[in-house]
């Protein structure tokens, strides 16, 4: 039903127009001290890039990224499953236990191993 998405599209365009309007408006009508600020900011930004450099994200972030990729895919597939669950009955339950059981076994093993201490 593609027509259901047309209002959403219109809505999205209007929603996007709001920040764009604000940004353009502030450009046009905002106080005109912009150039001074810009110069100062540029100097500051260059300072901090040369000084600190760009650190890599810590282990926590990468670890969670990996976990999240697995789990979120799992969860998103489960939404489709949940819609049809009432029709499938007991068979659906078995499917769930297999589908969720495999990653959960790995999850429990990681937990036991103490891998989550990194978080």
């Amino acid at each position, binding site marked *: *039903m593609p*027509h259901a998405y*047309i209002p959403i599209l219109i809505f999205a365009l209007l929603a996007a127009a709001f920040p764009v309007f604000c940004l353009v408006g*502030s450009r046009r009508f905002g106080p005109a001290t912009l150039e001074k600020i810009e110069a100062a900011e540029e100097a500051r930004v260059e300072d901090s890039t040369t000084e600190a450099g760009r650190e890599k994200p810590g282990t926590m972030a990468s670890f969670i990224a990996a976990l999240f990729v697995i789990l*979120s895919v799992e969860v998103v597939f489960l939404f489709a499953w949940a819609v049809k669950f*009432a029709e499938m009955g007991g068979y659906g339950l078995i499917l769930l*236990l297999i589908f969720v059981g495999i990653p959960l076994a790995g999850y429990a093993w990681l937990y036991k191993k103490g891998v989550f201490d990194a978080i």
Partner: protein
Amino acid sequence: MDSFGLISLPAAVPSALSAMGAVLALPLLVAYTAFIERRIAEAMDERARPVTPGALGLLRYVARIARVGLGQDEGQAELRRRIFAMAPAIALVAALIGYAVMPVGPAFQVADPNVGLLFILGLGALGIYGVLLRGEASAGGRIAMDFVNHAAQVVSCQAAAALGLLSGVLLAGSLAMGQIVQAQLDQGQWFIFYVPAGFFIYFVGSMAAMNRATAELPAADADLFSVDALADATLPAPFYVLADYVSVIVVAGIATTVFLGGWLRPMASFRDRVPGTTIEILDIVPVVAALGLALFWYRRVRSHRTEMQKKAAATASGICAFVGLALGISLFVSAAVMAAVHGAFWFGLKVGGYIYCFVWVRFTLLQVERERLMRQLWRIVIPVGFVNLITTAMAVVGTQDTGLPMRLTTIAATVATLGAGVWLAKYAGSEAEMQAAEGE
């Protein structure tokens, strides 16, 4: 269902108009959420609240929004400037679009696609780009890392929140927002009573995902801490604040739709009518309550001493009278109008109550630092979410196979989930103790 491909333009016009209305009203709605938050904070925490301009400072946020529109753009090095400026706008737009599928009563919904809930969750994930790109485009390494850690926290919380929602979807058997509400009407029960554990997981997950109670904002933008910083911050940083408040309303709307019965009134299946009319008895209750409140506040106008209190009471009285009259008049117009107005009233009331709980938790519980939050999320909340899903599925199958009432099987499922939660919390606690002992 209409046939594929055929798009009737006239049919799209009303929804386009409601889309426009919603977008125009939203910034103000958001601003007054902030206003109400300050009022609650004042009541709970003895914090001062803004009182000017306008009665009670009601005009303050109108001025604030105007100020955002006319604020000063912040400067950045030309290279990353575009992304840096765009990132908060992405966060805001992603949050705003979520409103498009909010079912505010049976009549007020911009669109009801068959994957509505998934659509909102996807938008929530899109909003994370707003955080990540900002970090990527900002110069300092420490700042970029703060943003990355923040994004890691948000995705973890969203995973937990989605798990909580799953149990509700399981019972409804649909992802369309309208049908989820309809399912609760058909089953004669709000899903919060069937899967309280799922609701709690969603509450915790969504709250932590939204910077509200527990998480600090990305440390780089300390000026984002309150909506009152809007006036001082330069564009486009305030978009984050707006996006944050928009998300609060969207999250409350999702919880209301999936767990709290959406636009249904309490005891929606009790449909006895006043003899001789088509008016249902229970629909009179909110009318009487609103008018009663209006009278109560009107009497307070005289008993208050200061001008400010008088204004406050008069405003409250006016709002209650308006709501009561709108509800009352709609009873006599037609069934469709009545359903629309009362549906919007109940939806708004539930969303308001949910937001109140959010603010309540924010100002009463201690703030938890990010590492601790993440640890508890991954060790306790997410596993319990899976357990809850499995037990809920078992309850549904149990009802189908044995014919036991749903109420009974879901209570058993909830008890099992709680047991698993307590066990996991104990296990995580004992593990932490062991680590502490080893550390010494």
